[in-house]
């Protein structure tokens, strides 16, 4: 039979500190993308003359729906000309893939080691 593990008792202050630690960690990770300012927001590409419904070359039904939505040609053009850039940075892609795969491998390996201790204590040594 595996020796029973007796965990340490945690003080109230220790419990409080541990709860706050996780919260601080969440906030830091929420703000990191802002500090990096690197998210790929869609960008409007139109720098030309003021657009009109004629210059947008929209079918009549589509133009009618834009008008019903309360848009004039200029406001509609701002949305129509907004484009996402899906250019892939291969190095960043590899780094991201390595981080996700590495995270799961680490987690499964450590979990398995801890799980064997749990099973040994629960069911006894094999």
């Amino acid at each position, binding site marked *: 039979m595996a020796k029973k593990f007796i965990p340490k008792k945690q003080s109230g202050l220790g419990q409080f500190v541990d709860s706050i630690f*996780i919260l601080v960690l969440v906030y830091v990770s929420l703000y990191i993308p802002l500090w990096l300012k690197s998210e790929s927001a869609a960008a409007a590409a139109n720098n030309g003359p003021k657009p009109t419904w004629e210059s947008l070359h929209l079918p009549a039904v589509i133009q009618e729906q834009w008008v019903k*939505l309360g848009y004039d040609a200029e406001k*509609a053009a701002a949305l129509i000309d907004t484009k996402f850039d899906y250019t892939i940075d291969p190095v960043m892609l590899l780094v991201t893939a390595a981080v996700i795969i590495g995270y799961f491998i680490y987690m499964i390996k450590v979990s398995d080691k801890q799980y064997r201790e749990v099973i040994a204590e629960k069911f006894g040594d094999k």
Partner: protein
Amino acid sequence: MSTSAASATGGERITMLKVLNPFHIWALGVGIVLVGEFMGWNFSVAKGGAYGSLIACWVIGLLYTCVAMIDSEVTSTVAAAGGQYTQAKHIIGPLMAFNVGLYLVMAYTMLEAADALVVGDLMKSGAEALGYAGLDTKPFVVLTIAFLAWLNYRGVFMTLTLNFVITLFAFFAILVLFLVTDPVHPGAVLKHSELLTDLPYGWIGVIASLQFGMWYYLGIEGTCQAAEEVRSAGRAIPLGTMGGMMTLLVAASLTWYICSGLMPWQYLGQAVTPLYDAASLIGNTKVQVLLFIGTMFSAIASANGCINDAARAWFSLGRDRYMPVWFGAIHPRYRTPYRSIIFLIPIAVSFAFTGLLDQVITFSILSGLLGYTFMSINMVKFRKKWPLNSIKRGYIHPFHPIPAITLFILCSAVYFATFLGYGASLLSIMAFYIVASLWFTFRRYQFVKRGDQFTMPWPRPKGY
């Protein structure tokens, strides 16, 4: 042991009440998700066009069907609060369980914050329509979270009964809107032939749209959190979850059909409340009011379900000492995880007021996605460690391991989609879970009892 926890009064062991039926499970799952049809799903249109969004709806629908199949089997067998967290603890191990518990708490608390913001914004829009411009949304955000937390504190039966009523109303609003658009006469109201275009970004846009395609269904797996409070887990969880998935597939398809037939895709891709906008375009005031209420109810139902699920996940982490044991208490009278419910109120409010809605939503989606990746690994290990007939299962899902493999592949595609749009957020969120894992391994785990973590009456797992 698995169904008990220390009461607030000391050493007495009390359990949560087993009062829920399949309708409550449906209300919990669909209630959390349905707000995604009223807003959020349409960002997938911006990423890949209207057809790209429809493909995302179906592909992600397949992902969630796999989730629902796997969840139904494992949860009907591991019927305990904490859902996937408790499953991970019994099937993979403590560190994975800790991470899964965090995924659940983060996904639901952040979704709850976003829902409360929506309620505030809707109140502002409503006030503007009635001639009261410039309404401050903050009190409504706090009130929404506080009121729903109070409801959750007082008992799960009333909480989910309310969710059933308002979720059904919101679903009914979508059905009415669909009927009003005269779907049997294409071109009369809906202008698909004129409004639908080719894929604006090609197939890369379709892949990118998978990330927001998650909004169609994100949170349906939350049905597992009620496993300890249903009268029959083997019946209620599969019925409620699979029924919920069917409801969502119908709602998602109708939503796409209505909106893509009324709005240019460039507008639809950035609309805040697309279904309400669709009702406005039809010009029927009664339907407009119905959709306003439906949108409001869907956001409230989602926040309500999220409080329910986040609190149970946090409670379960505390009960096992993965987080401070103080949180692992059940109210002696109301039989709810009251300390966890109260603790998460200010956290949800603070998330709502960070002004980082984009990051908060991405954190929520990614935490969900990490959880689905876990499920695919979990299912394979579950069948390997306890083959069929070695333990009693409430439900056995068909075609194993095809759903698990499909789920894993689709999760990988969504990671890539997230990389395309939110690469920095993806890395910073991964950094959070990596640091949290190291913290758990080298600090927190010293307070955790070893053998006591395994509470299911199962034989020794095969290979251990």
